[in-house]
C-alpha cells in the first residue's frame, strides 16, 4: 500500500501564476482533505472532498479551489499566487466514518517568488 502520495514534492512559482497540486489517497479511502502549513505553524484546513463534491471549507479565499475524481484522487488549484501562499501543502485521506484515522502525504513545498 503506497499510502497517500502527493506530487510534485517541490514547486517554485512566480507571483500571479496558477498552480495545481495532486493527491492520491490511501487505498480504500474515499475522503480527501487539503491543508496549508506555514513555517512554524500547525496545518490549517483548506477544504474536504467526498463523492466528488466539496463538503467543508476552511477560511481560505476563492483563489483556492479543488476537485475530486471518480477514483478519489484530488487536485488543489491556487490562482493568482501571492507571496503569502508559500507553504507546505498537505493532503490527507480517510475512510468515511466517525473513528477512522486520517493519513497524510509528505506534502508539496510551494515557494512563490
Amino acid at each position, binding site marked *: 500500500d503506497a499510502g497517500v502520495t502527493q506530487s510534485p514534492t517541490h514547486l517554485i512559482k512566480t507571483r500571479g501564476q496558477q498552480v495545481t497540486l495532486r493527491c492520491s489517497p490511501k487505498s480504500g479511502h474515499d475522503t480527501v482533505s487539503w491543508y496549508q*502549513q506555514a513555517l512554524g505553524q500547525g496545518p490549517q484546513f483548506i477544504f474536504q472532498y467526498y463523492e466528488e463534491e466539496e463538503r467543508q471549507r476552511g477560511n481560505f479565499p476563492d483563489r483556492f479551489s479543488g476537485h475530486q475524481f471518480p477514483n478519489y484522487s484530488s487536485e488543489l488549484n491556487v490562482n493568482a499566487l501571492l507571496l503569502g501562499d508559500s507553504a507546505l501543502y498537505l493532503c490527507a485521506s480517510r475512510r468515511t466514518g466517525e473513528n477512522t484515522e486520517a493519513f497524510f502525504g509528505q506534502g508539496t513545498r510551494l515557494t512563490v517568488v
Partner: protein
Amino acid sequence: SQQGEEDPQALSIQEGENATMNCSYKTSINNLQWYRQNSGRGLVHLILIRSNEREKHSGRLRVTLDTSKKSSSLLITASRAADTASYFCVSFKGGGNKLTFGTGTQLKVEL
C-alpha cells in the same frame, strides 16, 4: 472538530528519558488523535483514542484521555534521538474531516 492546544510548546530531554506532552480541547469529541511531524514534512498518525477510552498503548507510546477535564496526554517512554519531531493533538467531532491543529509541541531528544 475542535482545536487541540499542546503544552509545552517546546521540550528538550536526554535520550532514554520519558517525554510527556499535554493537550486540551474545548468541547465534546468523538476521538482524539496524535500526530508526529519530522522537519516540516508529512504528518504521521501515531494513535487514536476514542471518547469512551481512558488509556491506550502503542509500543513506547501511552495516551490518556480525560473527557471530564477535556485533556489528553502523550507519554513517550525511553525516548530516542529519532523521536525528535513536532507532536500535534487533534480532537475530532464527527461530521467531516476538518482536523484543527494547534502549533504543536516541539520535542528535541539529545544524545
